[in-house]
């Protein structure tokens, strides 16, 4: 059952550009990007329980690294690779100090890193052009971007699925449940957390690179803004953290709401993510997918995979 549903959805998305609907195409690209960010955030947040409010830093670092290197004449593929690697290296570096913290302290310290990156990119204007932003070569990249982002979404979902079935995933969940006890039973806690963060960061970094390539122009607030930082968390929490399909549902739901509200109330969506995190945390801590009827339905069709 789940294979049939996933097959149909995937087939539909694969042939969608044939219909030549530019608005919806753009909408889907943005949606894929959001799904990817929420889902990759959840590899760390949902399975090891570390709410990484700094996830978007990986995205932004990927975006800037790609843009800067591509502008120097480096080949496109190497620039994508460099954007991804930069995020990975950053993840490894910050994992040592950050993972000495737990709970809200971890989240806030991670969030501070995003603001730090925002200020750095704003003020190191000789490299990043500060608030003027960074431009890259123009070009119509609608179709390749569509398929690349779709590919990445499929990849992150597949990776999440493989994690839930592996020994590594089991160790991640044990860290989430009782970190000290996991350690007593031989789980290499630090290594598990760092690995989870690296996987999470690599997707965000690659997506960041694509984003620059696609939008042609980025500035600090586009990639390191508070709204961007809160978005993946709001989506994952709303959909249901720790369930593979949770962040996907959260992203679809929130983006559709945002698109419809945006046309009516110009600035409401800027407050939306904080509000969603607050309300979901208070009234629906399990997210949409753990609401009883939704959960029952998802289990019936075989799409409720959690760890």
């Amino acid at each position, binding site marked *: 059952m789940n294979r049939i549903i996933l097959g149909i959805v995937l087939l539909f998305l694969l042939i969608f550009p044939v219909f030549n609907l530019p608005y919806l195409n753009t909408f889907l690209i943005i949606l894929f990007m959001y799904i990817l960010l929420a889902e990759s955030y959840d590899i760390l947040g949902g399975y090891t329980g570390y709410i990484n409010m700094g996830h978007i830093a990986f995205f932004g670092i990927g975006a800037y690294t790609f843009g800067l290197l591509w502008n120097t004449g480096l080949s496109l593929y190497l620039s994508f690779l460099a954007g991804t690697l930069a995020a990975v290296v950053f993840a490894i570096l910050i994992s040592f100090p950050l993972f000495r913290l737990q709970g809200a302290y971890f989240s806030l310290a991670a969030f501070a890193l995003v603001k730090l990156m925002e200020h750095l990119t704003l003020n190191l204007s000789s490299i990043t052009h500060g608030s003027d932003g960074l431009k890259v070569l123009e070009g119509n990249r609608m179709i390749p971007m569509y398929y690349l982002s779709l590919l990445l979404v499929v990849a992150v979902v597949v990776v999440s699925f493989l994690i839930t079935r*592996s*020994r590594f995933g*089991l*160790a991640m*969940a*044990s860290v*989430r*449940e*009782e970190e*000290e*006890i*996991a*350690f*007593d*039973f*031989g*789980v*290499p*806690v630090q290594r598990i957390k760092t690995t989870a963060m690296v996987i999470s960061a690599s997707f965000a970094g690659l997506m960041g690179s694509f984003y620059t390539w696609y939008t042609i122009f980025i500035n600090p607030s586009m990639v390191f803004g508070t709204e961007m930082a809160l978005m993946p968390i709001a989506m994952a929490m709303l959909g249901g953290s720790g369930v593979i399909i949770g962040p996907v549902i959260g992203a679809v739901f929130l983006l559709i709401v945002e698109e419809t509200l945006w046309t009516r109330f110009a600035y409401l969506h800027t407050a939306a993510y904080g509000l969603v995190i607050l309300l979901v945390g208070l009234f629906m801590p399990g997210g949409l997918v753990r609401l009883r009827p939704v959960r029952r339905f998802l289990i019936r069709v075989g799409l409720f995979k959690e760890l």
Partner: protein
Amino acid sequence: MLVVQELSKTFGGLTALSGIDFQVEQGSITGIIGPNGAGKTTMFNLISGTFLPTSGSIRFKGRDITRIKSDKVCRIGMSRTYQNARPFEALSVLQNVLIGISYGRKDRPNIKRAESEAMDILRFLDLERHAPVLADQLSPLNKKRLELARALGTQPELLLLDEIAAGLIPSETLEMMEVIKQIRSRGTTILMIEHIMKAVMDLSDRVIVLNYGVKIAEGKPQEVSSNPKVIEAYLGEEVEEKGEETP
């Protein structure tokens, strides 16, 4: 098998344990008793590598493990249960045991073999039908059994049981004692903290008594229970209370 020498631990100005010496023979059951706050759980935390001792040494299987942390100690062959059962609550019973098997040993069995081993352990502890159930759904008795199962998954040569019978009703305690005997007869050495006297006295080959962080007595259960120091510190009150209760 386990040799503890001059073991001390202070937390700031508070001395939790001072100058503890004792040995655990291979294949034996050793009981640790003592009033609340005597330092029993602290001692477990030192032996298992959760805390580092302030001074003294711990040798296990002839190897100095004084400064070795709990993840390695577990792989060397020592595992434990916790005073308040602390399973991984959102994971299934089977997954809980799998973690012990997959990470707590030197050999790293593949998932299939690990699963069949986990099922064997669950069958032994009568938890088989709960295998897919989430750990937080279990009854107190089954949570204790799960703690035991998770520890057994690491194939320990020395098993530390921290009040495994606490909070159980008498019939469950008897059942648990039977299980502990069986584990020992399979060749696992056991060191147990216990408050329920019947359990300690019936099971233990030797008993160590702690009070205010100091070892005040050690010996066979009968010797210890007739030791005046022990009676003064601990058992005396119990005997008097019991005397009043039975007319």
